[in-house]
């Protein structure tokens, strides 16, 4: 997709007539396959904005930095990103009237991080793959679910595959096999917390893993502390994860984090659902695990 021209025009208009103080979009990095987040605050800076096939970065995460301020913010979001904005609104992290949401209908993007890595010389590959990012191949939400202005024509849903197929496979494993599978997966975690930082749903002011009184999970990269970190974080995401896939994308050691997140999505669907987080914004709506109902299922207790 390429909406660079349209977005620039909209951004220039919004900044000129003072409707917003800043526009959160993307710009080009040093390489043609590198698109990175960018904030334009004046009409002059609008010329740097791009919205192209490498605009994968979920910009809704940047809103957290401005949650306490008063600035009016315009933000460009694709389908998956817009669910992140719904997440923030439902969590009362930012006020709707401060946002001007520019939605773009997306037909899939490529991952600049993957391109950077493949061109870096750090990987043994003959030719860099240039296809769509993995998460785009079975996209269920190409069109923004919330917007003030929409760019591009509505895109059809691309993914019809059963996203829980791999989960079902893992569920079939014996307890030992499953333990070994996750031990292999999580032992290489270096606890850089990039997944937490990249996640829109991780918006606690003081994260549980930063608490000292008590310290819930130790800092060691032992398998037990790593397990605890990922399981606790996933549990906090249950019913709230919007499947934007950023956590998995930024992980420096390629841990397939979406597997764990999808398992919880599957469980929430079964026990409290069907429920898809962030699909539409209705004021006052809360994620299923934020509300206690007397008839909540409890036969797993």
């Amino acid at each position: 997709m390429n909406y660079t021209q349209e977005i620039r025009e909209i951004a220039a208009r919004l900044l000129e007539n003072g409707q917003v103080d800043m526009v959160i979009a993307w710009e080009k990095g040093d390489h043609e396959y590198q698109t990175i987040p960018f904030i334009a605050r004046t009409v002059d800076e609008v010329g740097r904005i791009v919205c192209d096939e490498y605009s994968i970065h979920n910009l809704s995460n940047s809103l957290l930095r401005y949650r306490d301020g008063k600035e009016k913010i315009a933000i460009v979001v694709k389908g998956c990103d817009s669910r992140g904005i719904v997440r923030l609104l439902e969590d009362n992290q930012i006020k709707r009237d401060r946002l001007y949401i520019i939605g773009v209908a997306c037909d899939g993007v490529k991952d600049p991080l993957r391109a950077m890595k493949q061109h870096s010389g750090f990987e043994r590959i003959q030719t860099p793959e240039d296809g769509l990012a993995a998460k785009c191949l079975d996209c269920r939400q190409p069109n923004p679910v919330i917007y003030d202005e929409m760019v591009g024509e509505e895109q059809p849903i691309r993914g019809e595959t059963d996203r829980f197929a791999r989960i079902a496979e893992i569920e079939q494993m014996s307890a030992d096999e499953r333990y070994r599978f996750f031990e292999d997966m999580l032992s290489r975690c270096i606890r850089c917390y990039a997944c937490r930082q990249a996640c829109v749903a991780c918006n606690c002011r003081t994260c549980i893993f930063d608490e000292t009184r008590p310290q819930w999970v130790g800092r060691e990269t032992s398998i037990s502390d790593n397990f605890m970190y990922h399981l606790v974080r996933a549990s906090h995401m249950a019913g709230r994860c919007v499947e934007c896939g950023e956590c998995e994308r930024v992980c420096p050691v390629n841990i397939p984090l979406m597997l764990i997140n999808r398992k919880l999505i599957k469980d929430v669907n079964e026990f409290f659902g069907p429920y898809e987080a962030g699909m539409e914004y209705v004021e006052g709506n809360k994620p299923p695990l934020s509300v206690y109902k007397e008839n909540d299922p409890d036969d797993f207790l």
Partner: protein
Amino acid sequence: MKVLKMSKIEQVLDRLAQQADVYVPMLRGQQTGFFSWNTYDEGYDDLMFDILNVYQSPKHVILPQTEKMYSFSQEGQEIKIDVEAEEMTPKIIMGIRSCDVRGIEHLDDVFLTKGYVDQFYKARRDKTTIIANACYNPGTNCFCESMGVNPTDSEAADIIMREVNGGYVWDVKTEKGEAVTKQIEDLLEEQEVELFPLKPFLRKVNYEGVAEKLKDMFEDPMWEKFSEPCQTCGICTYLCPTCYCFDIQVKAWGDEGYRFRCWDSCMYREYTQMAGGHNPREAAKERFRNRFLHKLQFFTERYGRPLCTGCGRCIVVCPGGVSIIKIIDTVKEAETGA
């Protein structure tokens, strides 16, 4: 010249592994890094001597991610502590590139000089032999030469392997290197070979005078601009071959436990969070600025060389596209009042 043929590499590793823990660059599953040859699994792992570099630098061999310092046990008001006896296995890091060797030189500066000698680090470092792999093909984001690193000749290496057709020239530099070479002498051949030329660098940066200029740029608006996309995720600090900041924590259960140190990152908010609530570097911009000033100015003032070796890893993996090259360029071009 002594030459090690490609076909003999695994034999060499086996031989060396008899007396030491040999760390070599490997592809293991989804990640690349330096792993112990003793853990090599033919069906799963892949030796990566030929690759430009691996993501995880070998700094963890001498500065482990988690390191037990001493254990303790309590009885009423009494307490006993027991310092961990350092494992005595010698270590060899083989196949390390110049940029990472310079990283180790910086760690040596930090942990072995200026008033105190870190005994845990010293115990490991004294027993570590460095066999560097000279680099002739700079990558897309490599700029080590601009930061004062010689890709084909590392200062702190005990032996330098130089890639030639079919193998490596075995260039011994120090006594430590001699001692290791003796173990595999019979596996080396005498041969006259031509060394590869160093290919030109794709990226250069001019660091001259940057440390001086930064002294007046603390309040420069560039920090706000550059830190905007930064998510303070910390990946840069974990993959950087020179980042060394650590935390000291305790693990206790009942009346026993141990104190350990682990890697920490200056990008996290609690890095300077004080007990009373005061935090001198609360905002992301302040931590971002502190990291780059540390790398480009403070370290140069203290130890004489910048804390960046030009390996390019941070540029590749940063989700926000932050580039230290851009920052150095901006400083270089900045007009300062002074």
